[in-house]
């Protein structure tokens, strides 16, 4: 797992959702463990799109369960580029 990408995702979640950094590990479920709801998920994707300059397809969003899933999606995008 790319630690730069993970660190950025962690930073965004900490800042946007007022979480503690130690809570954000790759195996954490965004909804069940971190308490995000559907509005939060849209806002998280929006923040990541602004940071990385690409567009998450809606179906991609539905496949995201954990912090690690997001990092994986971003890594695949970075590799393609």
């Amino acid at each position, binding site marked *: 797992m790319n630690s730069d990408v993970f660190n950025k995702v962690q930073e965004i979640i900490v800042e946007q959702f007022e979480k503690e950094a130690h809570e954000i590990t790759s195996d954490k479920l965004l909804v069940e463990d971190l308490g995000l709801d559907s*509005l939060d998920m849209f806002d998280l994707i929006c923040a990541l799109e602004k940071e990385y300059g690409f567009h998450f397809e809606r179906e991609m969003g539905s496949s995201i369960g954990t912090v690690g899933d997001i990092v994986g999606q971003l890594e695949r995008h970075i590799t393609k580029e």
Partner: protein
Amino acid sequence: MRRVVITGTGFYSPIGDNMADLRTSLEHMKSGIRFMDEWSGVNGLEARIAGVVPVSDFSEIPRAYRRTMDRVAMMCALSLKRAVEQSGLSREHVTAHKTGISFGSAMGGLETLFEYAEDVSHNSGFGRQNATAFLRFMSHTVAANLAVMFGVIGRNIPTSSACTASSQAIGAGYESIKYGMSDVMLVGGGEGLHYVEAGIFDSMGATAIGYNNNAQAASRPFDIGRSGLIVSEGSGALVLEEYEHAKARGAVILGEIVGYATGCDGSHITLPSERGMEQVMRDALADAKLNPEDIGYINAHATATPKGDIFESIAVHRVFGHNTPISSIKGYTGHMFGGGGAFESIVSLMALNESFLPANKNLETVDPACAPLDYIRSHRETEIKAVMNNNFAFGGINTSIIIKKI
């Protein structure tokens, strides 16, 4: 008939967010209006002064609620929190089926709306917009967000009639309880400051000009030197409760709303009508079953616009003659728009309970075009039994609220 009492209040204003600071500001004739350095980059504004609430930290509101709130909803939320705390209502009471809410603002979340519109127009279109933006700027953002935060499941009546938004909210709450639909109503409203409000009223020639270097003297209700209103911000919240409900739980009762009326002029979109103002005051007195001489103090709407103050004074004179003490507190606060009605009702309640009638700030020479009234020149310590709070809005929408000692 069911009686409606007030058991809690809370507010943010340019002259204080608690009763002690508010009283001090009014006693010392201190205005909360200042020059807006923040607007230096805005082109074409005549009036560059405003009434500002000096609070920016709203982290007391949990993020889950704050994420969908603009400044206006956050000020209202914390005002209501204080009002509920003062009332002593339990969580069980607030979330009961017959507890409802009515809150309003003139503009919704203007700050968010402008950021959103600019971003959509000039930058990213709709591709990268937050999901929460609309929930922060929609016209009923205050009532919707507060209902969620406080867990209200009863009636929800959002109001959006500009300067009467929160006085109509009080009226909606009063009528809901009086006619048996609710036992408790959480009511009020607010406005968040934005330069567009100053620009809008500039464009209509309604803002005070010539006072950018003398903010304390800018807002001058009834004075011959007035030239218009000063935009401002703030919020007010009240807990209204059915009398027996409040008594049964041993609540401290701050006052009783005995009369309310709302009506409209049906004539001009901006020009007020003394006929409509007179009618709404007479209707409120009839609802309260009181005579004009029973009212010991009138909290006027008077925004310091050239025509509005004249029409209002004429309407008051027709109903009350010239002996009832009257003042507008907009000389201290500027015009809080959607927050004005609720905040001014709280000031009226203070007048009732503290026997303190605030003066008209900056009233040096009464405009001879205004009717002869007992304009309060310096504050008075006078015991009174009932007060009337009037508010008037664009569209010729009028409200009058009468509060009595219990």
